[in-house]
């Protein structure tokens, strides 16, 4: 294989992985924006998306319907999680909510283990297991599906936050809780919605990546961590940052494991992440926090 096409292959693979990370990071950021907390359950929702899709494939005629059903189901789980675990908190500050999501992630993972089993599950890609050959580079069709679906979801999210009343309400509550509630925004409700959106995004990520990686009950921590890193890289709380961060992380990993030893590739990704944090703590796209004296 020529170097050019090898490079292209790595690039495409990196973008594909990056798209998945971007979705997870998006979910992460939405919760962060509305609560200031780091949602440790995000990764578990990714796993649920994949595993429940696998479960529903027999029930539905097309895989598309199975994916939609699974994603909606996990979205409901996200809403329930907020209601049962975050709403009752007496002092819902960012740290407590973070700790509570850690408990939630443990609970969710154990439920996945008990209900969905420990065996990894998978299914064929949306166009079967086709591999395309473009310009001498072989790309799996699923990777293209991943990129396409992610773009569509991002467009929907953009429209939601920019055009819809609910989306604007979420942004208002995230920017200034008190001001938003004064103008009639139900702040608690926006937190509920943000959990729902985060679960949707996570489940979608899991559903579209499973044909490539299989879904297994213990992947949650890894997905969560990667999404977390991507969010930090792009600027935590920034939605476009999630995309940039996700892509950056995906490409970093792809090129890192190709050019440098794949053993140390994780360390390389973290090292780069740390360097960016130190040089520009607010991430690639975020804005610095200003403290007024």
């Amino acid at each position, binding site marked *: 294989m020529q170097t050019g096409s090898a490079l292209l292959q790595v690039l495409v693979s990196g973008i594909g992985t990056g798209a998945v990370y971007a979705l997870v990071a998006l979910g992460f950021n939405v919760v962060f924006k509305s609560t200031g907390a*780091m949602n440790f359950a995000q990764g578990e929702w990714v796993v649920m998306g994949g595993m429940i899709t696998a479960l529903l494939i027999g029930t539905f005629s097309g895989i598309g319907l199975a994916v939609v059903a699974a994603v909606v189901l996990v979205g409901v789980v996200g809403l329930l999680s907020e209601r049962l*675990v975050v709403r009752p908190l007496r002092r819902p500050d960012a*740290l407590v909510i973070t700790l509570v999501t*850690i408990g939630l992630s443990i609970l969710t993972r154990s439920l996945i283990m008990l209900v969905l089993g420990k065996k990894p599950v998978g299914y064929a890609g949306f166009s079967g297991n086709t591999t395309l050959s473009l310009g001498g580079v072989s790309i799996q069709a699923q990777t293209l599906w991943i990129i396409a679906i992610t773009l569509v979801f991002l467009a929907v999210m953009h429209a939601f936050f920019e055009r819809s009343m609910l989306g604007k309400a979420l942004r208002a509550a995230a920017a200034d809780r008190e001001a938003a509630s004064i103008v009639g925004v139900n702040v608690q409700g926006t937190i509920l919605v943000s959990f729902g959106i985060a679960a949707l995004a996570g489940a979608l990520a899991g559903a579209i990546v499973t044909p490539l990686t299989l879904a297994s009950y213990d992947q949650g921590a890894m997905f969560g961590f990667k999404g977390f890193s991507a969010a930090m890289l792009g600027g935590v709380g920034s939605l476009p940052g999630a995309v940039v961060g996700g892509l950056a992380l995906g490409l970093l990993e792809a090129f890192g494991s190709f050019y440098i030893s794949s053993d140390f590739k*994780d360390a390389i990704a*973290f*090292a780069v992440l740390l360097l960016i944090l*130190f040089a520009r703590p607010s991430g690639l796209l975020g804005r610095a926090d200003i403290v007024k004296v």
Partner: protein
Amino acid sequence: MATFDVHPAEMQSAAPARRLSQHGRLVLVWLVLATAPFLLPNAYWVSLANLALINLILIASLNLLMGYGGQISLAHAGFFGLGAYASGILNVKYGISPWMGLPAAALVAGLGALLIGIPALRLRGHYLAMATLGWNAILVVFFTQLVDLTGGPNGLLGVAPFSLFGHALDTEMKIFPLVWAVAFLVMLAILHLLRSRVGRAVRAVATNELGAEAVGIDSFRTKLVVFVLSAAMAGVAGSLYVHVNQYASPETFGIAPSIMLLVMVAIGGAGTFFGPVLGAIVYTAVPQVLLDYEDAELMLFGLGMLVVLILFPGGLAGIPAAIARALRRKAS
């Protein structure tokens, strides 16, 4: 937008009456603990007690950093590991006695903290959490990949136990006094620190950096000192751990344990002196108790954690105060 800063929940006052009784309570608890090897039914329980005491050092030092110092660290298990591997490798590769390994572990862990602390402590809240998380992840990669040095994923084998006057302290009963003593000294050191101008500076910086700087406290240096100190204590725990188990493997020092330690600080009661004791008991005992339930263990643990966090924001140590408050509300 909510910021991700740690608010030390309840800080103990320096009122002289309370101070004496905290000191007194510490001594009392340790005297009671001293009877453990004689009262516990078998060696397995004593090994749990040893583990609990090591976990106590970890949780108490993290509580110093987080509960009193207001800093989030997700690298604590990593420093635990640095200490364990430092002491273990010095012993296995260079034949150095564990007694020398103990201070060496503190030093190495402290250096590891210095390396990440200097750049990272300029960051706040979630940024600091992320930086320490990344650092722990990097450390684990090194623990796992430097196979010649650390034994890699299979772990470090053949670590000698502590020995006193030629006798190897290689059973649970024999090593208990040492673990008991070191844990006591660590708790005492933390208590003394908190009751000094250094401790007040730490708490002041945690509460209000601007106010602290205004009275002449170098807040960055204060944060760095607590960070390094807590890591050094974790290193000490690491040395104890590796010579008690005569073995160390990377997964003990990964991100998941770091996260759990943080949770245990909160569950015990962040910013309280005895909270870590409760946290250590929970951290050590609960998995053992739940072993019988196998798969449901994890679920029960998660449920339990949620119950404590939601119902007892002050942690387990805050339960007496919470009950008192509830009773007062009922009376009015």
